[in-house]
């Protein structure tokens, strides 16, 4: 089973986000983050996971959800466009 498959199972299982389209975009982004993290350290500890949460910013700018993950050597930045209402 691939890491991408695991991440998608995780997102579906925890039933996050009611909007299906947004859930799909977020799942794709999480799969990408997972690949980046796995490339650096697949065996990340739980303490390292909590530490990384404190180096993560999630905010909305206009109609775009922005996620920034500060790793030691780089910052991963993702933008997800939300539906206009």
């Amino acid at each position: 089973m691939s890491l991408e498959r695991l991440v998608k199972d995780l997102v579906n299982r925890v039933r996050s986000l009611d909007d299906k389209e947004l859930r799909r975009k977020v799942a794709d982004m999480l799969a990408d983050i997972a690949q980046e993290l796995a490339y650096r350290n697949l065996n990340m500890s739980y303490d390292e996971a909590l530490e990384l949460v404190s180096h993560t910013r999630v905010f909305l700018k206009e109609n775009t959800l922005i996620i920034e993950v500060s790793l030691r050597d780089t910052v991963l930045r993702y933008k997800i466009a939300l539906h206009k209402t």
Partner: protein
Amino acid sequence: MSSEEVVCEESALRCFAEILGLLLRGDSAEVVARAYGKNISNLAEAVILVTKLFEGIRIVNTSISSAIKGKRVSVMTVRLRREGELKNKGRVSLLEHLLRETGIPADYLSKETSSIADELGGDPSGILLYLLLLLRLIEYELREVSQRPCE
């Protein structure tokens, strides 16, 4: 001390992430987690997971009662408190929990977990924890924005 409330439904992992996510947000946060009927076992599993994995989280009290929600159902309530910094105290595989929730039979869980870990070249449980918490951050942000008054 203010406390936040979580209602656990059919995913123990989601319940675990909601409890942990809220406890991480404050210095001495308290969370009241509740579940009804068949979801009680998910709450119990989430509480076991959160307290097994991290020191710095204390169960303040637990109660079981019954309520009328259309029909009579059992209600389990657990009050948890964060005391100080959270530190990992035990290795419980979130990968195994995820596989269990996706329907892998108990007899094959351990074998399937090791086979996936072998295939990937390690256990991604730490990454799964991070992703669960990141999902919570996204949900908090979207919820807060939807509750902000229009300018």
